[in-house]
């Protein structure tokens, strides 16, 4: 019971925080659901980025915070290449570029630092992010580029019968969500049902034991990085299609951190759920909590979503550092 007390306090606090939105929601349920869905959609994008991160960490024990920058680089490459070739060709090339990039980063940056603490790796991959920022813009240009997935950007009204006036959602958001779900299901099947997937899980558990039963580590790592590369290209294309492709390190590179803290560094479901919680939480806080705070404190506008994710992660850290689904870390002297 005592072990669960911090969680109970956290949930109670979250519910209290949700009181305002729920109150508004009670009076305008359609709007509430709209915001909720919008949050979920944003959350899906975060989840996809965190997913790549968790995959690499699970299989090789490496913190790759450059994941976000790599996603953006992939998106940028695909967007530009798609100007001169069919989208699906560009996407395939994009996966290739991603895998190559991932392998280079792993060999040059991450492997020499493999025994260092997470902070050193974070700083190194921030360096990589900076490099990719400059490099990407030198090679591909600095404007905002579009990825045209062939989906109409016009929002659509659904559930007109259930909620008054219906709910407005974007088609590309739905597409992103569907793709994410398909991806997660595919990954889950891959890890649980195939021999390679089993090998990956073995490697994640214990490198030496896996080697001693004959699992070829290097090949496994190439597979992992390739899978992560595919996830990154998918995430990049979804993100790029929705928002246009532009580098913003604080948005992408750093936001993965709260997501994996919430979900646990080694958990795939955690990455998904963490991303969704952050996406929904941010939107809810911005839309519902924001006006309340503006009125109470006489603020000059909103912007709560800038810090919400990090403060939420901080609270989690103080209460449950291993995240929702991560493993308990025991410190012994």
């Amino acid at each position, binding site marked *: 019971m005592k072990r669960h007390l911090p969680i109970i306090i956290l949930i109670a606090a979250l519910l209290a925080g949700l009181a305002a939105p729920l109150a508004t929601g009670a009076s305008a349920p359609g709007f509430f659901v709209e915001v909720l869905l919008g949050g979920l959609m944003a959350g899906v994008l975060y989840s996809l980025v965190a997913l790549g991160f968790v995959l690499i960490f699970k299989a090789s024990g490496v913190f790759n915070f450059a994941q976000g920058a790599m996603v953006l680089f992939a998106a940028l490459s695909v967007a530009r290449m798609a100007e001169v070739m069919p989208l699906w060709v560009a996407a395939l090339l994009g996966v290739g570029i991603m895998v190559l990039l991932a392998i280079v980063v792993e060999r040059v940056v991450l492997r020499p*630092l493999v025994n260092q603490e997470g902070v050193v790796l974070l700083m190194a991959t*921030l*360096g990589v992010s900076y*490099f990719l920022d*400059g490099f990407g813009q*030198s090679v591909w240009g600095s404007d905002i580029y579009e990825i045209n997935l062939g989906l109409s950007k016009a929002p659509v009204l659904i559930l007109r019968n259930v909620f008054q006036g219906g709910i407005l959602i974007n088609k590309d958001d739905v597409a992103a969500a569907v793709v994410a779900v398909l991806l997660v299901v595919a990954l889950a099947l891959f890890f649980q049902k195939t021999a390679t997937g089993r090998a990956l899980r073995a490697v994640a558990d214990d490198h030496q034991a896996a080697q001693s039963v004959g699992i070829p580590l290097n090949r496994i790592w190439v597979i992992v990085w390739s899978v992560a590369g595919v996830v990154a290209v998918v995430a990049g294309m979804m993100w790029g299609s929705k928002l246009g492709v532009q580098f913003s390190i604080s948005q992408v590179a750093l936001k993965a951190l709260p997501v994996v803290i919430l979900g646990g560094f080694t958990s795939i479901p955690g990455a998904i759920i963490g991303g969704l919680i952050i996406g929904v939480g941010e939107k809810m806080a911005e839309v519902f909590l924001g006006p309340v705070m503006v009125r109470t404190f006489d603020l000059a506008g909103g912007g*709560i979503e800038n810090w919400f994710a990090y403060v939420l992660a*901080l609270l989690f850290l103080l209460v449950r*550092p291993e995240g929702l689904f991560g493993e308990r870390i025991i410190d012994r002297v």
Partner: protein
Amino acid sequence: MFYRENGQFKQTYRQDEALLPIAQDRIVMLALLVFAFVGVPFLASNYLFLSILNPFLIMALAAIGLNLLVGYCGQISIGHAAFMSVGAYAAYNLMLRVPNLSFLVALVLAGLIAALVGMLFGIPSLRIKGLYLTVATLAAQFFIDWMFARVKWFTGYQSSGSVSTPVLDLFGWQLDSPVKKYLFLLAVVTVFTLLARNLVRGHVGRAWMAIRDMDVAAEVIGIRPVYAKLTAFAVSSFYVGVAGALWGFVYLGSWEPLAFNINMSLDLLFMIIIGGMGSILGSYFGALFIVALPIVLDRVPAWVGAPLSTAMASHLASMIFGTLIVFFLIVEPHGLARLWAIGKEKLRLWPFPH
């Protein structure tokens, strides 16, 4: 052959504990200070002051502050520019609301306020370390950014959200030219550097380093982690708070809330990684590098006949920074300061091979 301690025997502990025990070092330092205070004002152009020297001095101060926390005490912070912001806005509000307040007093008070805020956000360090602590400092960065942007009281209810400051008047001496600003900054930074050097060689500095190197053993010796970590946050935030106030008042003149955003925090971090963590001298190296490189990339290619566009120059700067960060983290975690120390070691033998 010239840089040797031969014949310089220390006969008391006091002599051994001096800041600059080697006579040649003392001579060089004296010459450097004389040159900095007397020579540079005559030799440097206004442009040099405005674009390199003045920002370099302020950033060196901020880098020293961050280095105390990260390099000496081992507590990571990637949101430190937020405390610069606190210092700047605190100084602004003090000068605005307290009549006839001397800027020097406001500067120290602003530093103290920043120290308090820093201590507050340093409390998580008592329970979490390393990677997890970075999230706490990021939360500080984004929350404080937002607070100064939205809570109108801080900006004196200006409609634009940005604040501007008058020309500084220090007991009659008006800081109305780049040279005068330079001299003021040089004086402040010199004093603060001396204070930092003293702290680092005192027992609090050793406590910080003990916590950094092995906090379990430090506790066993009787060092209280709470005291060490919170003082590290406090002193570090004091320094960057003062630096922030100087940045806003002396260098920028007017600023908006985004002036102290995450990019500046990352710049500070890069300064101490490249310059050398756990080294005051390294903070200077790093600050000079980060301040000067974009300017150099902007101007030098044109001189050698291969001009770069401004955009390209900034991309190149990002790439160079990124590469150097990775390089220094892998190859020489103690940064340029260690390379400098190695160079000095070689100098002791020069021109002899061994």
